[in-house]
């Protein structure tokens, strides 16, 4: 990489609306939802035979702003800008990158904070329960709208990785290759437990009001606490030790009160407050529940064991210090894919940052993803 300042990649948030009544989308639960809007962004150019599409699936609280800037003046790039762009591992000079905000979120796509056309008011808790399967089904509408029949590669971490796996299970004919990162086929009891504590923090905030808080003060405190809990699960013992240790915040001695002596307390409070400013509490409830419901091994066998998946090339990545989606869960995915005869590569990256490692710049991950995509593009 040269130090030469490259011109900023400017992207635009776009919207796609579909499933207009009476043709609503039928959800996993049997409920009908429509119209549905998905916010999405694209980088690079779709080639003539529409074979260079790369779909990025974002995690729980992410958004469509995956890379680039909204304007020349914009100082903050998208959330995976180190991975995606011209000359980067997901090279937008060669690939057409798509990222959409998930169904149920609040970053431009339809979710509980959207207006319910039947009442003219935000859905709140009238919003139907959506699952990972529903999120993927909605994305399929968008992909078809873009004229793409087969995605060259799809990648995502965490809840984004669940969407990757769901795509493979539900629409294998549309997937050429897949990179599930730091993810699982089903939440562990531990992961569900942390999500439930986060949800209870929101629902026990008096301002939550059964989800009908729009237009008034929201459950800000509950949402901040939920984020603080989430944040702990994204880090690791080692990363917290090296980042904070027992350091005190702006003081040299204990204050003997509850205003937060430790740096780690101050950090979590800051993260909580920052999150409240950008995210809707109900969306967090719905999306965490969707993560908990996700289970590719429920019922009659593992959904990844399917001959229709055998053409998909997989690259599975986990991180050594991730205790939210530990390596054994990635290895279980790999083991299943081997049994069904898929072409699968796997690497556990040694990283100390816990679950968050998948979003950190990492040379090893760059190599893996860059090399894998290069190979897939040549196999096309």
């Amino acid at each position, binding site marked *: 990489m040269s130090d030469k300042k490259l011109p900023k990649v400017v992207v635009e948030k776009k919207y796609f609306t579909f499933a207009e009544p009476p043709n609503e989308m039928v959800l996993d639960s049997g409920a009908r939802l429509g119209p549905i809007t998905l916010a999405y962004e694209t980088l690079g150019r779709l080639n003539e035979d529409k074979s260079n599409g790369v779909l990025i699936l974002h995690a729980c609280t992410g958004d469509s702003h995956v890379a680039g800037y909204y304007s020349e003046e914009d100082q903050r790039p998208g959330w995976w800008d180190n991975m995606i762009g011209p000359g980067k591992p997901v090279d937008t000079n060669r690939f057409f990158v798509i990222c959409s905000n998930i169904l149920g979120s609040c970053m431009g796509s339809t979710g509980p904070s959207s207006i319910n056309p039947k009442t003219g008011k935000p859905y709140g808790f009238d919003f139907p329960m959506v699952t990972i399967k529903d999120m993927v089904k909605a994305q399929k509408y968008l992909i078809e709208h873009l004229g793409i029949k087969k995605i060259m590669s799809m990648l995502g971490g965490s809840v984004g990785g669940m969407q990757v796996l769901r795509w493979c299970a539900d629409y294998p004919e549309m997937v050429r290759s897949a990179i599930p990162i730091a993810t699982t086929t089903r939440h562990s009891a531990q992961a569900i437990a942390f999500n439930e504590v986060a949800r209870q923090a929101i629902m026990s905030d008096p301002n939550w009001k059964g989800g009908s808080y729009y237009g008034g003060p929201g459950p800000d405190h509950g949402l901040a606490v939920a984020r603080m809990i989430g944040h702990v699960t994204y880090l690791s013992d080692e990363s917290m030790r090296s980042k904070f240790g027992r350091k005190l915040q702006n003081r040299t001695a204990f204050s003997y009160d509850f205003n937060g002596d430790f740096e780690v307390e101050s950090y979590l409070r800051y993260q909580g407050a920052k999150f409240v400013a950008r995210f809707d509490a109900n969306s967090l409830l719905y999306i965490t529940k969707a993560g908990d419901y996700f289970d590719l091994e429920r019922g009659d066998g593992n959904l990844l064991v399917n001959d229709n998946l055998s053409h998909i*090339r997989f*690259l599975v990545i986990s991180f050594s210090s991730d205790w939210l989606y530990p390596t054994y869960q990635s*290895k279980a995915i*790999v*083991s299943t894919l*081997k*049994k069904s*005869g898929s*072409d*699968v*590569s*796997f*690497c*556990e*990256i*040694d990283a100390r940052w816990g679950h968050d490692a998948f979003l950190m710049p990492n040379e*090893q991950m760059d*190599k*893996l993803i*860059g*090399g*894998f995509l*290069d*190979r897939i593009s*040549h196999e096309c």
Partner: protein
Amino acid sequence: MNAETELLENTRFDLQVIASWISPGSRVLDLGCGNGDLLYYLQREKQVHGTGIELSESKVARCIERGLTVLQGDFQEEVHDYPDLSFDFVILSQTLQQIMEPKKLIPELLRVGRRVIVSFPNFGHWLVRAQVLFTGHAPVTDQLPYEWYDTPNIRVITIKDFKRFLRMAGIRLAREVAINTHHHDREGHIVTYLTNLRATYGIMMLELPG
């Protein structure tokens, strides 16, 4: 050396021999594939469908960066997932001497692959024998460079012993070659007589009878 083998020029001589045994377009599993030199060669020159298993993260990353299909893990555990006869060839090069239970592993490899190719350093080589006999020391050679206290090589194998094992286990020896290597094992030649005494490595292709 022709253009085809040029890619392998800097590769261990035993791998060059093994590569020559692999038929084009076949499905290959390389156990302990390292940086993937053999798989890379086989994929480019023989269009094989290759998979490697390797323990080291950095080597796995290097392989995937090169466009190979490689899994990080201990192949002694990883092989169990594969359905019967998933591969035409399973390659175990210079690792047999580090295996805890070769008697269990080799039949398992013959379950997932139609043929298994093994190469191993020959403890029957005259230099090894001479060291024990004349100096009274456990042998340290180019092929077996470790002291007794730090060696990963927990199995002492000679070409003669391995063949005896195959007879006992009812495994057919489909092909064999003994080689003598030099220059960090990158060059070598084939040994045709008194192999157990003169060869530094044995390379054998195994299959089940019938």
